[in-house]
């Protein structure tokens, strides 16, 4: 079983649209689990007629709690917190919970033992059945933190589900950015597809995401989405790929069919199978399949 993760650095270049279409193509030939690790904005299930099978709460966060009765307002905790999560109001410490990382530094310095670190529920993981596959999707609760640890849990749940249905492939839709949820999403995967679009901003973010991919030494390739949008940027992406020895897996033409399919809540390859973008994603699927099958563990390729 193999896991491929799709990330982009910049948001909105088409991670979820490509993941959904790639999933729709590959699930016809393989047993597939789709994992949505964009826990801030999980959207993958919206592309399918997804039936919710189960949902479970996840406690993957810790927060400090100040016991006002024991607190003598010495304010040592304010100084100790490197995340500026404790401020002073009317002479008393107030914890701004959104910024608390649960590190426990405050509870170490508190001479009164007035601060306790507690496990917090910070999200949930939903499992959906769709016609030919399973979607495992993580959602961060409003105002909660530790999205990286939640992503770890989503990946674990997706692996379990893959084991249960004997899947060949996990396709993971990653979060935008380069920070901790992205690092959690790509760690331990077999292949990373970096999605980009030919704009200067997306190229800048592509360079950044490759610094992360290289940091974890993962095999990877690029898909240029919205190809044809801006030739000069596209040339620069190709130069970047060549200089860094990264393959361009496919170019998906700029095509209004993609946002229109998304607006209709369908993968573009299902809504408009003959659209130029659909052809491009089909090429991507073929290349991805070949890459992932190196070594033969994508056994379903022979199954049909």
């Amino acid at each position, binding site marked *: 079983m193999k896991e491929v993760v799709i990330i982009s650095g910049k948001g909105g270049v088409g991670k979820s649209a490509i993941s959904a279409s790639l999933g729709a193509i590959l699930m016809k030939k393989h047993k597939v689990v789709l994992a949505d690790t964009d826990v*801030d904005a999980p*959207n993958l299930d919206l592309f399918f007629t997804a039936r919710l099978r189960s949902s479970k709460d996840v406690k993957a966060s810790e927060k400090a709690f100040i016991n006002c009765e024991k607190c003598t307002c010495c304010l040592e905790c304010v100084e100790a917190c*490197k995340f500026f999560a404790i401020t002073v109001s009317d002479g008393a410490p107030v914890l701004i919970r959104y910024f608390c990382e649960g590190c426990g*530094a405050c509870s170490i310095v508190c001479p009164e033992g007035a601060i306790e670190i507690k496990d917090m529920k910070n999200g949930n993981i939903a499992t959906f059945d769709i016609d030919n596959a399973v979607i495992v999707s993580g959602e961060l609760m409003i105002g909660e*933190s530790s999205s990286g640890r939640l992503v770890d849990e989503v990946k674990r749940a997706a692996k379990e589900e893959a084991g249960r249905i004997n899947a060949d492939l996990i396709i993971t839709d990653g979060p935008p950015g380069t920070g901790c949820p992205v690092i959690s999403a790509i760690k331990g995967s077999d292949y990373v597809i970096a999605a980009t679009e*030919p704009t200067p901003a997306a190229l800048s*973010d592509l360079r950044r995401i490759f610094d992360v991919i290289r940091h974890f030494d993962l095999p990877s390739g690029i898909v240029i989405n919205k190809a044809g949008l801006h030739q000069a940027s596209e040339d620069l992406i190709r130069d970047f790929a060549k200089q860094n020895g990264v393959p361009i897996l496919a170019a998906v033409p700029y095509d209004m069919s993609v946002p229109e399919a*998304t607006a209709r809540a369908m993968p573009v390859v299902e809504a408009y199978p003959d659209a130029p973008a659909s052809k491009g994603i089909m090429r991507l699927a073929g290349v991805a399949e070949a890459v992932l099958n190196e070594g033969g563990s994508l056994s379903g390729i022979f199954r049909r």
Partner: protein
Amino acid sequence: MVDAGLKGRILAALHRKPLDIPIIAITGGKGGVGKSTISVNIAAALSEMGYRVALLDADVDAPDDHIMLGITLEKPLDVTVNVPTIDAGKCTGCRRCVDACRRNALFQPGDGVPILIGDCNGCEACMLACPEDAIRKERKRVGETYMSERDRLLLFTGRLMPGAEESSMVVNALRNRLHASGGGSDVVLVDTSPGIHCNVINALRGADAVYAVTEPTPLGAHDLERTLKLLLAIGLRARIILNFSDLPGPREKITVMAKAFDAEISCELPMDDLLLKSHVEGVPAIIMFPDAVNSTSMRRIAEDIAREYLQ
């Protein structure tokens, strides 16, 4: 549960403003809906109107505002955290630092001197726990902040180092740099990262007005709802900007949601190749194509802001 009095104090602390300058935030749950494009255009429009604008690019994972403005980043400052190095001469192997580290980043081989093997976020709990003063602080760079000036526009950019996880440290450093720069601007615009996580909340602190950008697709509607819930939770009211407004999607979902959250849809921007052209050229649309429909709409947002907050 948090009682109402405490919740009020938390929100007051959250939104405390070190500078007495109006703060306008542009946010959105979904990536790629146009937060940065809209931010740089409003900034350019306000600057054109004669106001001194501080634009905070708080999407430290993927900072792009300078690219869209054609600005070269200037005046870099490192953002660092302190990670532990343990002095073998002083360490007694008591293990307290290992137990203090809730990320399990310290490992003690046998009963020897602990070593840092995992991801350290610089919380310094280990240093506080050590009874022997045996832990030395070593600086680790996790990002940079920049301050770049052009005409009346002061751009503050935060950049997380790729591979680093400490984006909240970079957002804090960015806010501190803005505050340290003093009150030289008439207005602060904040471009947040996508999503609803703590960095978005950090960027929204003290905002006088929040524009939530979305698109009329099922994804846009779903993510807008999460943004509106977040804003409600932290006591901020939203105005909605509907970008790509002519996409044939579930518009009514967004209209209904706006009503439910008492948020007005203050602007609609149809799809427009000119926006795209200005985006790739690194010149805001309101300057490159001043007469385009969307330029007029975005200029109107700037005028609204000026009328409400800058008189």
